[in-house]
């Protein structure tokens, strides 16, 4: 592993037990049902970079985010941040010191701020918890943070309900920055916002990255937003990363058949009238995913091997057809109409 990788996620897995209760299960003579939400994800993020995970619902992107910040213990695998393992068995002192440097921004700013706390107290909490300033200095620091995210220091005396969705997301960002975090995991930070407000928040996040050298793990289902924000993008499908590539390359020459399908499905504003391949089928049930490559039932290039063997992630893409040279990146074979 090279030393400029700030975050290393190695073969991360998470299984959820979604079985019915014991009695019901026994009466119906059913076995346990396990859902592999994340099934062997390995990615690394460089310092100061924005790495994005995209995927549709159920692809496991939010589960990865929650494991990276430590909100959810992984079933297997390891998350190493700045050389310290977040998932080692013992809670070492190094890990406690690391916690301060990692923060998260959630999707819904209406749910992530305590409605009974004043904004000043919300932002001051991490400062006090980590003992980052003396009591007299806290207020000053809160004002500084509010100004940093484009709000007024006087807003500290208000309650969250007095703010609009976009302003609340600014407060959430200020809280994340309060602990002098270096690595911020953003789980769909603008999905609940209107487009013009989204633009304000995305611009703010980029400005802050430039000024403070932040590293972002950006989770989103919106490919256009991801293209705007990220340097490197990982595409997830049913718990696995199917393609990792620099943003420019991913959009110019997508390689995995799923990535191509996803890019084709996005309605575009330019109305270029480009021909598109109709989308085939839907995401299968993650409790009983298809064998081999989970995308095989929807893939025009699938063959016997794809149905049998899970393709490994090699050269940034997990697809037998690409590895075998059966998929020409230039022209995708026509898929029969729906």
């Amino acid at each position, binding site marked *: 592993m090279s030393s400029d990788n700030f975050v290393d996620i190695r073969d991360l897995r998470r299984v959820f037990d979604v079985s019915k209760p014991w009695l019901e299960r026994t009466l119906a003579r059913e076995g346990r049902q396990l859902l592999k939400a994340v099934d062997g994800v390995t990615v690394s993020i460089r310092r100061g970079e924005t790495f994005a995970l995209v995927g*549709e*619902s159920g692809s496991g992107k939010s589960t990865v985010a929650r494991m990276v910040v430590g909100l959810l213990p992984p079933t297997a695998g390891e998350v190493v941040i700045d050389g310290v393992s977040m998932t080692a068995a013992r809670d070492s002192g190094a890990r406690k010191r690391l916690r301060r440097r990692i923060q998260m921004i959630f999707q819904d700013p209406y749910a992530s701020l305590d409605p009974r706390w004043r904004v000043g107290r919300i932002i001051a909490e991490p400062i006090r918890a980590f003992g980052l300033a003396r009591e007299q200095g806290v207020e000053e620091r809160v004002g500084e943070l509010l100004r940093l995210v484009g709000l007024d220091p006087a807003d500290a005396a208000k309650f969250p309900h007095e703010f*609009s969705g*976009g*302003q609340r997301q600014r407060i959430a960002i200020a809280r994340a920055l309060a602990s002098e975090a270096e690595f911020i995991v953003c789980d769909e930070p603008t999905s609940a916002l*209107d*487009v*013009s*407000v*989204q*633009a*304000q928040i*995305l*611009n703010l996040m*980029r400005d802050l990255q430039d000024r403070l050298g932040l590293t972002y793990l950006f989770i989103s*289902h*919106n*490919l*256009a*937003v991801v*293209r*705007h924000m990220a340097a490197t993008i990982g595409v997830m499908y049913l718990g696995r990363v199917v393609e990792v590539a620099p*943003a*420019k390359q991913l*959009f110019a020459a997508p390689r995995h058949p799923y990535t191509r*399908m*996803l*890019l*084709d*499905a*996005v*309605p*575009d*504003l*330019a*109305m*270029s009238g480009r021909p*598109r391949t*109709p*989308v085939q089928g*839907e*995401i299968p049930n993650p409790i009983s995913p298809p064998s081999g490559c989970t995308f095989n039932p929807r893939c025009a290039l699938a063959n016997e091997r794809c149905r049998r063997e899970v393709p490994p992630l090699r050269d940034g893409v997990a697809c037998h057809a690409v590895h075998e040279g059966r998929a020409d990146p230039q022209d995708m074979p026509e898929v029969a109409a*729906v």
Partner: protein
Amino acid sequence: MTEPVLSVRDLCVEFVTRRGVLRALDRVSFDIGKGEVLGVVGESGAGKSVTGSAVIGLIEPPGRIASGEIRLKGERIDNLSPTAMRQVRGRRIGMVFQDPLTSLNPLYRVGDQLVETIRTHLPLSAAKARTRAIELLAEVGIPAPERRIDGYPHEFSGGMRQRVVLALALCAEPELVIADEPTTALDVSVQAQIITLLKRLCRERGTAVMLITHDMGVIAETADRVAVMYAGRVAEIGPVRDVVSRPFHPYAAGLMGSIPTLETATDRLVQIPGSMPRLTAIPAGCAFNPRCPHAYARCVAERPELLSRGAHAVACHLYDEPGVDAEALVQRDKVAAAVGRSRA
């Protein structure tokens, strides 16, 4: 020109609250022709959904249509009695809402819901209605419809449910379909399927569609004309190509610029300063004036009317100000935005 399917004139909708009368729609006017898809866009609170609800007569008290006219094929429908309106709703105007799970009754089989709707509106026997329901399900792309017709809504995936809702909306061959955020709850790959389907079905039948959404991409791909709404008013309306690629109204231009796209990589998105006004405090004159980079005295004093040039209409004083070269202004803005982008 032939008579439009739907014609809305100077529609005002008000909500009476303790804090006074809120005007959710303020003199909204538009037409939708046969087989035409009109996209209605705007941000939360712009009045898009209220417009849809007003057309189908589902404004709940304390809301009320304060003034204006809604005509369906020339007949007024805004002043019909609730019973008469029920004949129109479903029969002549079909509806598709955002969440397919709440549009379907979870306790009834999909087929029973379709048959009930068909028989309410069309004089068909139960057996004939069932055959018709199977045909409809096949048409909306549900595999094995003879078998799936006896399934319950929870046995269908989100995309399949929205297909069923589409079949329900179209089962009485309505003249107009109102689709309120039909794909917002769906994933992109499923969204593409539903949008293509909606467009194809309505084109085949000549059904007029009012497509309400906040997703400009969906509009650009689907609609023939677009209305951009702001604070309960129509800011700009015109052919989709003109409005999306050459918006004139400063709000519409800002909105288009703020959307990240797959085609153009920019470092900075266009930002509209400030935020949407609350309905309790809509600015005097043009509702957009406090946020507008071009606002001048007239914008505060006087509300701009929707002024049309050809098919394109804009509610902005600059559009008809003598001595102001509007095109040049828009161009200057574009250049400024481009410079801002390359600098960032």
